[in-house]
Structures are given as C-alpha cells and as structure tokens.
C-alpha cells in the first residue's frame, strides 16, 4: 500500500515532466512510422543517431555528477563506458546467447546485463577513487584519463591474457577471455537496445541523478564543489561523498556503455579511447557545468549537429565547423549555454516557509 502511495506521490510531483517526455516519445513514434499517421521521416539510420544522442545524455549527465556537481575534474569517462559495454556484452553475447531467446527472458537478461555493467563500472570507479581522490584538479584529471586508457589496453591485450591463463592451466577461463577478442573487436552483439528501452532508461537515469543531486546527499556533493574545507567543517565526510559521486557516475557511465554496445552491435576498445572522453567533456562544458538541462541539450545538439552537417552536404567540413562553433561558444559564453541554470521542471519545489 505504502509503495503504491509513494508511486502515486511521485507521479503527482512529476506530471509535467511525464507529460513532456511522453509527448516527445509519441512524436518519435509517429515520425519513425510506428504509428502510421504521418510520413516516415526518421529512417533506421536517424533513429540510431537519436539513440546515440540519448546515450550521450546519460553519459554527459553522469559526468556532470563528478565535474559539475562535485567539482572534481574527471576526464576518463569513456573508461567506465568501456567496462560497462564489455560487461554487458559479455552477458548477452558470450555467456548466454541472448539472440536465441524468447522476448521476455531476453529483455530480463538485457536489463540484468546493463545493471551488471553499471555495477562493475561503479566498482572500478570506487577502486580508482579510493587512492586518487586526494589529488587535486588537473592531477586527478590526468589519473582518470590514464585509468581509462589502462582499461582500454587491458581489453586490447585480451589475447595475451588468454594465452597466459591457458599456460597456467585455467583453460576454461582462458577460453572465455579469448572470446572477447580485444584487438579485433567484439561483434555479433544482439540487437537488444530498442528505442523505447533506451528512451526509458535515459529518462530513469536522469531522474535518479537529478533526485540524488537535490537530496541531502547531493547537497553534500555540492558543498564539496563550493568549498571542500568548509564542507568538511560542516560535518560532511568529503572523501566518502567524492567516492559516492564517483561510483554513481561510473555506474551510469557503465549503463550507458551497455546500451551503446547493443545499439552499435560491435565494440572495439578504440571506441572508448580518450577522444571519446573528450567528446563528453565538450558536451558537458558546452551545456554548462552543474546544469542537467544544459547537459541534456548539449549532448543532443552536439550529437546531431555533425550528422545534420553531413545531411546538408557539408560532409567534408563537418568536423571543422564543429570545433569552430565550440570555440566561438566558449569565447561568447564561457560558462556554457545554460551556466548552472535549469529548466524549472527539473528543480523540485520547496515548500515556502516564512
């Protein structure tokens, strides 16, 4: 009963938000031909780009959790994404063959694999956070970058690891590792990231992160960003909250990676290089640090922009125009499009007390 009441309260608080998201979903359904009342504008290719945009939203908002809200400078987000992608692909492609399953077990397996991907990534975030969070600013940044690259080279040397395991007698284990086939990339990943699922998970992730930020625990993170010494003297265990923010962010990056693997259906360690991390950093700062709205809009806009330029026959120039626009944006608005402002429906109402 209590749970139902809670859910009811939740819906009541978010009716505007739910209405908007439902409307957007409906529009997509209409234009990709699922609801046949309008001409089909969005081909499969465009739907894939939109799904990438959604995944980028998860990635950018989760990066915002560390960089924007906790004030730590992390630039190795693709490393967590890599862990999530490989973990979830391991469950759906190597350990079980999701492609041969019935609909519901397949869905359950997929969700399970996404959560596992998130958890493993979160654990990695915890491990790397533990010894390094005493580092400041750029030093932390470079360690997170290095961490991402280490993950990538570990995956890339999966053949050598398998050979080594074989030598010391762990044949079974070695066979599984060999199937990851790091340097050649993992293909034949089943097509499990359906649009509705990616959409739903994106919304859920954003809501979860947003609710976290607007709770006392999120405020603890904000206080670290504002002034970590003062936060500590306000009784906040700053190390603990940095690690929590780091792990939570890594969790969602892992989930994003899992979705990414199942949209692209082929993953290679080079997909998750530092260049990818830089992409998310750009989305984040273009949108505005500490603004969920900014992250969402910038991730969507900047994912679609190069494709849009391709569409209007700027194929050659798109990767030149994109950085130029970025430079101009930063020169005109150094705090990003949104600064740290939010759309009002993302800010919870506080009862007026006077």
């Amino acid at each position: 009963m209590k749970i139902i009441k809670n859910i009811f309260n939740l819906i009541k608080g978010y009716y505007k938000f739910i209405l908007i998201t439902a409307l957007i979903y409906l529009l997509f359904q209409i234009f990709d031909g699922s609801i046949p009342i309008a001409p089909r504008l969005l081909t499969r290719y465009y739907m894939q780009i939109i799904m990438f945009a959604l995944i980028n939203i998860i990635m950018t908002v989760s990066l915002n959790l560390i960089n924007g809200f906790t004030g730590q400078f992390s630039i190795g987000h693709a490393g967590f994404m890599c862990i999530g992608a490989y973990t979830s692909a391991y469950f759906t492609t190597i350990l079980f063959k999701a492609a041969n399953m019935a609909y519901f077990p397949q869905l359950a397996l997929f969700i399970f694999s996404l959560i596992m991907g998130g958890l493993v990534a979160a654990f990695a975030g915890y491990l790397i956070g533990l010894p390094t969070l005493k580092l400041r600013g750029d030093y932390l940044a470079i360690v997170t970058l290095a961490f991402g690259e280490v993950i990538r080279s570990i995956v890339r040397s999966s053949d050598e690891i398998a050979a080594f395991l074989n030598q010391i007698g762990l044949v079974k284990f070695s066979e599984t590792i060999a199937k990851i086939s790091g340097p050649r990339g993992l293909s034949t990943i089943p097509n499990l990231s359906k649009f509705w699922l990616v959409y739903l998970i994106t919304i859920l992730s954003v809501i979860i992160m947003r609710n976290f930020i607007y709770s006392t625990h999120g405020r603890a993170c904000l206080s670290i960003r504002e002034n970590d010494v003062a936060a500590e003297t306000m009784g906040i265990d700053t190390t603990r909250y940095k690690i929590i923010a780091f792990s939570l962010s890594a969790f969602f990056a892992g989930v994003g990676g899992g979705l990414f693997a199942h949209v692209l259906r082929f993953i290679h360690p080079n997909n998750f290089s530092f260049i990818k991390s830089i992409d998310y950093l750009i989305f984040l700062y273009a949108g505005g640090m500490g603004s969920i709205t900014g992250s969402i809009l910038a991730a969507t806009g900047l994912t679609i922009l190069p494709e849009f330029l391709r569409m209007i026959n700027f194929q050659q120039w798109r990767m030149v125009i994109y950085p130029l626009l970025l430079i101009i944006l930063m020169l005109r608005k150094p705090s990003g499009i949104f600064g740290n402002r939010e759309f009002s429906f993302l800010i919870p109402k506080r009862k007026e007390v006077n």
Partner: protein
Amino acid sequence: MVLLELKDMCCYFGGLKAVEKFNTKIKKGELVGLIGPNGAGKTTVFNVITGIYPPTSGEIFFQEENIGGLPSHKITQKGIVRTFQNIRIFPTLTVLENIIIAYHFRTHYSILSGILRDDNYHQEEEEMSKKAMELLHLFDLHTYHMNPAGSLPYGEQRKLEIARALATEPNIILLDEPAAGMNPYETIKLMELIKRIKEKFGLTIFLIEHHMQFVMGICERIMVMDFGMQIAEGTPQEIQKNPKVIRAYLGE
C-alpha cells in the same frame, strides 16, 4: 564542567614551530578570546582543534574524550564547529541551502530514499527548511533566503557563516576574526548578536580577534599568544596591564 581541554598541544610545520605547548581549559558557557600579533599561531590553534591539521604532539580533550587527530568532519559531529578568517560560505548555493547543508550529518534518510522521494525524504527536508528559516530569522537573513550566498554584502556573509556554524548544533563554536572587515556599527551589532546567541543556545565561544574593543568588551577571559607560545592568560583587565603582552604588541 570543563568542555575543551588542550594539553601540551604542539603543531610544527617542518622546522617551524607554529604552536608550542598550548595548554588551556575552557569551561562550559565561557566566552574566551585568543589574541596575539599577526603570525602568532592563533589560527593554527583553531586548525588543530578542528582537525584541519593533526597535532604534532599533545592531546585535545573534548567532553573528556581525546579528539586529537580525528578528521575534521568527525570533530564537527562531536560538537565543535568553527568559522573562517577568510569567509568560506558556499557562494553559488542559496542562503537557505547554505544553512541546510549544516544539517546534513543529522539527517537519517538514505541515498535510496532520496532518489525515490519517499515520506522520510519529504518529512526531513521540510523539517530542515523550517529549522533553517527560523535560524535565518534570528540572524535577520530571512529576506535573502533564495539569493545566492555569494551575492550578499560582506557583513551579511560573515553573519551567514556564523549562522551556518550554529546550524550544526554545536557545544562550542570557534570564531576566527568574526569582526574582520566590518565597520564600527556592524561590529557593535555583531557583539550584541554573539551575546544573544550565547544566551539563547547556551553556547561556549572561543574567538580570535584583532579588534581590541571587541575582545575587551565581550570576552570573560583572554589568552595571548606570541611566536607560537602562550604568554599570558587572564581577565581583560589583567591582560591590559600584563607587561609581557604590552611587550609583544609594542616591542621593547
């Protein structure tokens, strides 16, 4: 009853003896001042008590418990809170949020209830807002409650920092130069405010200040430091007459 006791507390930075064998006992309900020339090590005493630096040697007892070397947030949770010489509010958060953050370690709802927004969350959040607003009223800051704290005038920021410290519901509050940068009128107002909150909350106050009128007018007992050493202790009248103190301030 002795609330805070420092026994031979030392703090060295390499070869620099910032604080050398500091001894004192502060009773419950006292208002004690700490003065001394610039660089005497006053702020370091506060930093060591509040756990920002660990003591090099010596012990710190708070309510008969040795707290030396505990991390800062633990010490705050035990009931010692401080303000800073250079204001350290949370500038882009609102005034109200600044206060609410101080209630953080007293809230019980988990991260999960925060995410799911269950009854615990709503109840505690509401309670916190209410308490915070009451405190802001007491400090005459309620009109600004939705403004970013960094946009407040300097004097109000100082007041906000004290209010935020009070919100942790401490037993003893350490004020590091609360009147720095204030004009005479604001200083008098601040003296009244400190007296008022001391009465209202039954606080013990330990403060550093350069403003002699302020210290002499408000403190019941004063300690004087010079070059990391404690050179005198007594009532304001005694301190004013103490030859060592005069020498420390005016030179030979």
